[in-house]
């Protein structure tokens, strides 16, 4: 029982981790929690759905198409909405993200309606793999693996590529980045594109478990945000770990205590973390030398 809960917790947690990562990547560059993240992912998932069902493309093409769409969407939103803000403060940027969250929600409702749809996924949610005492569905296994692969890619990207390092540099000190010739605006666009793509992966992996309608990402986004706060909004690894921890705790709570109150755990955890370690469990306290 325990192992079983742990395992499915991990798989849910990996989705939270993805959403948390997507949010943190943006948060680190512009200190804005992007509340439009969920809707961006939802819209991309709908694009995958349209390519797959309406136009009858193969899953691989639809998947890649949706990711491309997500990347463009992210860069577009950054370019059209955020960059226009002149000398913005954090609050106004947050409001902008809330604004396009609503716009995107509206667009999805208008284009695809409020019907609940089913995203045909090539990996089954019902066939199970036996892992000793516990079982895991193929879908959950796929989610776990895809997430891990994506995280590995991200790690390598930030560690070894010039653009990745330049992104970190921009996050840490935009002025110094500019005088070293890093085009900060371009980096911001790339950041948004990346984040949006990661969110889209989460959305597509989530769609077969949940139902595909404009509310698809509402709760997962809050959970992802909670994981990011739990792990620390400033660390990629921390926020991903936060996602897994939240997934596991939530599932254990659902299994042993109460299924009805399962969703509330996330918010209880946020409150606790904010009380005892506001920067997040894994954030490194870094004191800047003057």
């Amino acid at each position, binding site marked *: 029982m325990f192992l079983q809960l742990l395992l499915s917790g991990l798989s849910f947690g990996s989705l939270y981790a993805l959403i948390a990562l997507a949010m943190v990547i943006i948060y680190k560059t512009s200190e804005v929690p992007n509340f439009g993240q969920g809707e961006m992912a939802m819209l991309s998932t709908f694009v995958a759905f349209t390519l797959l069902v309406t136009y009858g493309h193969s899953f691989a093409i639809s998947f890649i198409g949706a990711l491309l769409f997500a990347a463009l969407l992210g860069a577009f939103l950054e370019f059209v909405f955020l960059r226009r803000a002149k000398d913005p403060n954090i609050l106004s940027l947050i409001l902008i993200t809330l604004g396009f969250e609503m716009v995107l929600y509206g667009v999805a409702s208008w284009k695809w309606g409020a019907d609940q749809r089913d995203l045909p996924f090539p990996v089954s949610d019902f066939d199970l793999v036996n892992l000793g005492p516990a079982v895991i569905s193929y879908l959950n296994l796929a989610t776990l693996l895809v997430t891990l692969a994506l995280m590995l890619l991200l790690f390598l990207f930030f560690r070894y590529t010039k653009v990745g390092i330049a992104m970190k540099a921009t996050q840490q000190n935009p002025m110094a980045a500019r*005088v070293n010739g890093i085009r900060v605006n371009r980096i911001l666009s790339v950041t948004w594109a990346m984040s949006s793509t990661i969110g889209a992966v989460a959305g597509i992996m989530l769609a077969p478990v949940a139902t595909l309608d404009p509310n698809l990402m509402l709760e997962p986004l809050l959970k992802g945000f909670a994981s990011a706060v739990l792990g620390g909004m400033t660390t990629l690894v921390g926020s991903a770990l936060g996602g897994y921890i939240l997934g596991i705790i939530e599932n254990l709570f659902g299994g042993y205590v109460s299924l009805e109150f399962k969703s509330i755990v996330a918010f209880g955890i946020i409150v606790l973390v904010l009380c005892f370690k506001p920067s997040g469990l894994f954030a490194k306290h870094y004191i800047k030398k003057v």
Partner: protein
Amino acid sequence: MGTLLEIKNIETFYGLIYALRGVSLTVEDNTITAVLGNNGAGKSTILKTVMGLLDDQPDKGTIEFLGRRIDGKDPEVIVRMGLSYVPEGREVFDELTVKENLLMGAYIRRDRGGIKSDFDRIYGYFPILKQRENQWAGTLSGGEQQMLAIGRALMNRPKLLFLDEPSLGLSPLLVKEIFRIIVEISRQGVSILLVEQNARMALSISHVGLILENGRFVMKGKSNELMQDKDVQEFYMGVRSEESAKGFQRWKRKKRWR
């Protein structure tokens, strides 16, 4: 000798503050030019204006680098023309390693071989950086961070290097070391525009010195002549020209340039 940088009559506002009130300055090939002045005189503002870091500034005047207008251009563009800037207070990337910081300095370059040899050159100037190669820059001491900031600026092979207060917050010994390396860098054919409060040190290594007060240049001359100037000695180098009989001075020498 050709002229690298020519600033003509720039005026800069910081919001409502009139920071530069008509500043003209030229930097020649293969020289070290020092701009001296007190806190708030506008020294750093000159560099920031030229680098394009201040939005919509300079308000008036022109800036030419290598014969091309650069006023109103973005720093990203200016850097690509061969002008590097070491900001005041180091501004290294705290959570990147020393190596990554230097790599960011070479961000605009594509030639792998050249970058590699420049790494060796910088580690030659600052051997301590080689030892700290894989450490986060934020964990370095102030002096090491300054060295890193200079090294990073050199990584894009500038023709002209701006140094903003390289001696800020460093021990006298380190200041000496940094200035020794600045001289060495300039011998390699990099011109330097140095902004400093430490007048004695700056004048001792520079060829031309300028003194800035309240956003205007009040004095310009060869560095060794400025060092002999009574006013400069009194106001910028802390030399007292006359001992008072009572052992303390109750009057101030009048500045002659006002």
